[in-house]
């Protein structure tokens, strides 16, 4: 079994590859590049890989070897479907194609999913045309049609691909699981063409969000524990979990359309018990109690609002123009809230230490 010469493709130059070893390959003497073989069956190792990917472990390492794969027993007339070399993308398409005889052309997207890679341009016209050439696809199949996932379209110019490679592009459905239905009539229903963001899709993103926020949260929780006690420490953790887990789960149900205001509303709700606790602290003055209650309202809601704003990048519907508008509209307000919340807390702390309140 010979490996493809890495120097033949510029994409290999800088990145060390970590290929999944379980795919077998056969070399056919007439082709410039071997046709790899895969199945629709997902193993325990695949499942484990998906869990690790969802947790953000070795984030760029969930790759399969780019190239042409056969699944089942394809003939020169069998359909060719295009995918990315991210394990979640590739496994989604091959498991959806169980029982079908076809080819999968895997582009080198550096281990990034189809949509993100299309946005970057790595799932793009140039890579597709080059991959067609490298795999000798034109001599493997007789037809000249490629089925490209619809979410790859932001990187692929169909008419350019046709001009440069001779292959016509049909855009397949958004979701791999609709492929069997799509392949029957080679037509996607309007429903198959629309991207959704259901609870399950939102939920699987939350572990990575939580993992990303874990370290700063841990540090903040320890500092707050030392400065203000266990409840303040717990408040920090609660605000982060609200922003990274509760917010994505409740996204469609929170009023207003902007992520910042949604996060602010949710953060305020979660902060209420903490504000209540803070305000019943045994201060001498009622004003000190009110001010102590305002501190968690300000700080917790702003943490949640900021995390909510950052969730825009995880959704399949926020536009850059809109997100930019949100940033300019709400980030100054967030800075003021953080500043006044911290100032208020420090003021109360000093007054308490010197015995004024």
């Amino acid at each position, binding site marked *: 079994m010979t490996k493809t010469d890495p120097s033949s493709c510029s994409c290999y130059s800088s990145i060390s590859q970590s290929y999944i070893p379980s795919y077998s390959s056969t070399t056919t003497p007439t082709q410039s590049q071997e046709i790899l073989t895969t199945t629709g069956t997902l193993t325990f190792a695949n499942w484990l890989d998906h869990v690790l*990917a969802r947790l953000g472990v070795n*984030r*760029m390492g969930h790759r399969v070897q780019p190239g042409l794969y056969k699944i089942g027993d394809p003939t020169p007339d069998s359909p060719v479907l295009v995918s990315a070399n991210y394990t*979640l*993308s590739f496994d989604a398409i091959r498991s959806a194609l169980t029982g079908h005889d076809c080819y999968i052309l895997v582009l080198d997207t*550096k*281990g*990034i*999913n*189809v*949509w*993100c*890679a*299309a*946005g*970057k*341009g*790595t799932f793009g016209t140039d890579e597709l045309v080059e991959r067609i050439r490298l795999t000798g696809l034109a001599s493997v199949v007789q037809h000249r049609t490629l089925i490209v996932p*619809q*979410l790859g*379209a*932001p990187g*692929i*110019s169909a*008419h350019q691909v046709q001009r440069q490679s001779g292959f016509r592009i049909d*855009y397949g459905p958004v979701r791999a699981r609709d492929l069997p239905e799509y392949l029957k009539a080679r037509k*996607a229903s*309007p429903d198959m*063409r*629309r*991207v959704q963001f259901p609870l399950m*899709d939102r939920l*699987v*993103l939350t572990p*990575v969000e939580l993992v*990303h926020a874990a370290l700063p949260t841990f540090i903040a929780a320890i500092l707050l524990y030392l400065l203000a006690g266990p409840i303040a420490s717990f408040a920090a953790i609660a605000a982060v979990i609200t922003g990274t887990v509760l917010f994505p789960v409740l996204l469609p149900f929170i009023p*207003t*359309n*902007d*992520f910042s*205001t949604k996060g602010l509303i949710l953060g305020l709700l979660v902060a209420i018990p903490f504000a209540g606790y803070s305000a019943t602290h045994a201060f001498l003055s009622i004003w000190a109690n009110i001010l102590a209650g305002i501190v968690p309202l300000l700080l917790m809601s702003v943490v949640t609002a900021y995390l909510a*704003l*950052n969730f*825009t*990048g*995880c*959704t*399949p519907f*926020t*536009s*850059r*123009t*809109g*997100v*930019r*508008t*949100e*940033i300019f*509209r709400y*980030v100054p307000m967030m800075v003021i809230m953080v500043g006044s919340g911290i100032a208020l807390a420090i003021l109360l702390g000093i007054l308490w230490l010197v015995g004024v309140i």
Partner: protein
Amino acid sequence: MFDSYRKNSLRYYPDRCINCRRCNQVCPHGVFAEGERTAELARPMECMECGACALNCPVQAIEVQSGVGCAWAMISAAIRGKDMDSGECGCGGEAGSCCGENKEKLSCNCDDK
């Protein structure tokens, strides 16, 4: 108020349209509908500026400033003193990032599709 997503950079010139229906096929939000002689701009407010329609329009009847709708990426770029729209990918973090070192165009939505 509370809706920053009313405006976007999508522009459609129906007089150039040859009704090939590519825009209708590629849009994940049904922004374009099939029309009698030209595509129809049915739900312009739903546009997320992914740029698929413009890139796949063979006659440049659609223009959109495509880019990433990710606050994380934009704020990070702004903090580092770069153009907010230079769009380095927010996913992957610093170490071993797909995009931190590479000078490839645009960035991604972190969504794992």
